[in-house]
């Protein structure tokens, strides 16, 4: 990731690029502010309470960066996959803010946020825990200039995922909470697998802002009112239970 340091600024100074990023797809939520560079990020490692904490966190982020809500000229969200409830919190916030303020909405895969935040270059497989023995996973080739998708986001059993990666001749580094949870399964199949530590596998809002900076068109949402996040998997009432 190219370093994008915030420059010190005074109140009232014009901020041509002032963005707000929100990521809530996993228990590790985050809020970040960009003012011609990453200016602030707060990470919230919480269970169940993004809906109660995220707005105060945004208030705090704006206050710390002396930003008025009207200064924000782009809203960037993590699009999932992840917790259904969590994904919808960021999506609702982004859509609501974007439509109310008439500013662009950008949405990037939360798995892509994991991949670029890992700091790794080359092929990165981002994984978050999807429960019921599965992970949400996607693979990306990450360079200084941007990213290329090698495997689209999906819900996988780890053994099936690794088989698919072998079939595609993709040999990635593994990052994300899913890789930590299923470390033994991964190394049991690929003894030489590199699994990054937990702190390098977070789908952070700062990573979403970096993506907005280097790949704006990848995340641009043309019609915020019609946009839906990426759920990948749905829970449905079984057909044979009624």
């Amino acid at each position, binding site marked *: 990731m190219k370093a994008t340091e915030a420059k010190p600024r005074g109140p009232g100074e014009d901020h041509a690029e002032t963005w707000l990023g929100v990521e809530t797809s996993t228990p590790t939520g985050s809020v970040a502010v960009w003012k011609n560079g990453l200016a602030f990020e707060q990470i919230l490692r919480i*269970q*169940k309470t993004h809906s109660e904490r995220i707005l105060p966190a945004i208030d705090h982020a704006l206050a710390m960066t002396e930003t008025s809500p009207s200064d924000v000229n782009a809203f960037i969200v993590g699009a999932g996959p992840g*917790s*259904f*409830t*969590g994904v919808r919190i960021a999506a609702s916030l982004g859509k609501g803010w974007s439509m109310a303020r008439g500013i662009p909405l950008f949405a990037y895969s939360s798995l892509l946020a994991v991949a670029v935040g890992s700091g790794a270059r080359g092929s990165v497989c981002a994984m978050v825990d*999807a*429960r*019921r023995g599965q992970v949400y996973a996607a693979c990306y080739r990450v360079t200084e200039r941007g990213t290329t998708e090698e495997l689209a986001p999906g819900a996988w059993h780890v053994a099936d995922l690794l088989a698919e990666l072998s079939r595609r001749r993709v040999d990635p580094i593994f990052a994300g909470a899913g890789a930590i949870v299923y470390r033994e399964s991964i190394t049991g199949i690929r003894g030489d697998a590199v699994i990054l530590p937990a702190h390098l596998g977070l789908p952070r809002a700062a990573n979403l802002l970096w993506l907005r900076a280097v790949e704006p068109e990848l995340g641009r949402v043309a019609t915020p009112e019609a946009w839906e996040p990426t*759920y990948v998997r*749905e*829970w*449905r*009432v*079984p*057909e*044979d*239970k*009624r």
Partner: protein
Amino acid sequence: MGPEKLSEKQLEEWGERIGREVEPPLWIAMAGPLGAGKSVLARSVCRGAGVSSYIPSPSFTLVQRYASPRGFLVHHVDLFRLQPGDPMDPLGWDDLLADPGIVLLEWADRAGDLQPSSRWDVTIDYVEDPEQRAVKVAKVGAAPELVEW
């Protein structure tokens, strides 16, 4: 455990004891015909866990959530209105599965194998005496130990 014939009062007392004594996480899957007493048991567990507010039926809201003064959340869920193939995501199903509190699930049979592998399966059914119900409970997987009637 059971089947045991319990009066409504005994069912309430059992539920309150569960809410008071059990160490979550606990998923209670309740099955039984309409009017058998699933909601009575669910409300009693809520009361036992210290919920002092009004406890409405979740038949229309699907999920009601309460903060227990014991330091966890109690989720009262009712699948009665869901049809086969209906999405369960709006209930926050994946978050319910991971919640460290108590989940009280009515019409649990409709969730089939989407339920967690550790839970209590409670069945409440009518008996000849209209003042009583036949209640059975089974501990499945690594769920907390059962609470006696």
